[in-house]
């Protein structure tokens, strides 16, 4: 369960202060399916990064499963990212020199899992995204949709409770985008909290709940219209 109270995020750009997020109050229960929408520069990516512990709030509180994480030291934060959160990026961010299996294995290597356990989980994760036959392919041998599926397998291999996706279909054609969304939704049905940042109304319309940001403030929160 995600709980934000009075959360702000300010950047210093030159001598100007950019207020990316202002006084955000937000609760996302476990298993929810949320789309964060808004024009570019509205702060939706910043919000997602803070939810994923990739960025820290300037002030306010972020409680994840009842624990304040906004002020945790870096090594504890790394554990939170490793165990609770999966992240999917618009540009996939796969490691080019590693195979699909190698990319999926990476979070487990970093988490210090033994080899035997890793092999099993890699196979299961690749199977779940329908890429068992592409395990030995490197990213440049895969299509965009396949790459994003590898990224999803990587994000979910350690069974996180939250999956955060930043424009997951932004770099894909319509049909592979559609497949990716369906894949994410299937995982949500299995109990994963899913938060998607998008400016595609069609993607947003499928979510259970839409949050609209403008100039760093939540201007609308509810079921899609």
């Amino acid at each position: 369960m995600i709980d934000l109270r009075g959360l702000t995020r300010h950047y210093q750009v030159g001598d100007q202060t950019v207020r990316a997020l202002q006084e955000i109050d937000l609760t996302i229960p476990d298993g929810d399916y949320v789309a964060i929408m808004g024009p570019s520069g509205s702060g939706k990516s910043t919000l997602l990064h803070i939810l994923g512990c990739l960025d820290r709030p300037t002030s306010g509180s972020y409680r994840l499963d009842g624990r304040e994480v906004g002020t945790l030291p870096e090594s504890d934060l790394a554990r939170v990212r490793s165990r609770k959160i999966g992240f999917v990026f618009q540009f996939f961010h796969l490691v080019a020199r590693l195979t699909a299996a190698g990319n999926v294995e990476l979070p487990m290597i970093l988490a210090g899992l033994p080899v035997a356990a890793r092999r099993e989980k890699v196979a299961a994760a690749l199977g779940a995204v329908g890429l068992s036959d592409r395990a030995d392919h490197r990213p440049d041998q895969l299509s965009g949709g396949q790459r994003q599926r590898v990224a999803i397998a990587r994000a979910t291999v350690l069974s996180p409770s939250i999956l955060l996706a930043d424009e997951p279909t932004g770099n894909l054609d319509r049909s592979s985008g559609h497949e990716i969304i369906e894949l994410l939704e299937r995982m949500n049905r299995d109990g994963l909290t899913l938060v998607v940042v998008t400016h595609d109304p069609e993607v947003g319309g499928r979510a259970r709940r839409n949050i609209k940001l403008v100039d760093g403030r939540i201007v609308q929160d509810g079921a899609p219209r």
Partner: protein
Amino acid sequence: MTGLECVRFALAALRGHRLRSILTLIGMAIGVAAVVLLTALGEGARLYITGEFAALGSNLIIVLPGRTETTGSAPITGGTAHDLTLQDAEAVQRRCPRVRQVAPISLGSARVGYGERRREVTIMGATPELLPVRRLDVAIGQFLPPGDPRRGAPVAVIGRTVQHELFGSENPLGRSIRIGDWRFRVIGVLGEKGQSLGADMDDMVIVPVASGLKIFNQTSLFRLLIEVAAHSEIDAARRDVLRILTARHQEEDVTVMTQDSVLGAFNRILGALTLALGGIAAVSLSVAGLGIMNVMLVSVSERTPEIGLLKALGAPPAAILRVFLAEAILMSAAGGGIGLLAGFAGAFVLRLRFPLLPTTPPHWAVAASLVVSFGAGILFGLLPARRAARLEPVTALAGGR
């Protein structure tokens, strides 16, 4: 993340950036190889010259008439020293048990003629002892015959150059040559020796020492070369010789030098030479170090997004540092190894090509070059990685901007 996995991950990363890894390796290898090779050359020169001295006989004491060092302001005795005589040589030989043999030498320069040919040559007066003391050998004929050194027989042993210049292809043995106003019979030719400590032994005529003194109307010998039985006794022998000669002359008017003191001076000069070469090597090493630094800095900042990704996937800062440390160590080890191989191979080739020059890199140079290349590689690999590992993951993902 275990050590083995760090190494595996680092290896994969190095393979993934092949060109950059190769450039870094070359930079490191050249630095290390340059140091090894340059210091090997310096060390080789030093060993070569010390070797030359040893070939002269390391148990040698040299006695010169007159005192070389100036003591006090105006010496009362003036510059007049007693002559160094054949009797002195005999006395040393007889009274000092540590001395194996004494070779008295006189020296002068005279015109040597045979038939129409003439040549200005160094004339050395000597005794049969010169042959073993100076490690000379006779190519044809014989050396000076043993006998009373005070009786000068009219016989001469000539050097190779003298033989060629005066006799050409004619057999010189038994021929009569003119030295100044005197006639000598050639009884032998020296083996080729070449330059030895500034004296060209090939362009020389050796006559009995009494004859040598007579030709130039000299009363004093040029040198006494004294060979001591054992190297360990050389200092004691030196004191004995000085005591005997001082007693005979009633004052200390000779200079007694040991081969060691000459050798020591040369060693110091050559040590300075090696140090200078080491300095050159140090410069090339620091250039290599800077190169390593540049490549590592660029490499790590280029990979800031990758560091960001690793953080996003849950890597703690320590794991990221371990990966980059493993990379830097692998890189430095490989670069240093290749550099050592290249340096030693170069030194080996030089040894084959110039067998006289024993080019062997000194241990300190090898150690220093490895320390610098490892130090630079690890320091400049870790510092930027540590900075990147401290960035917020989202900043690192965007390339650190």
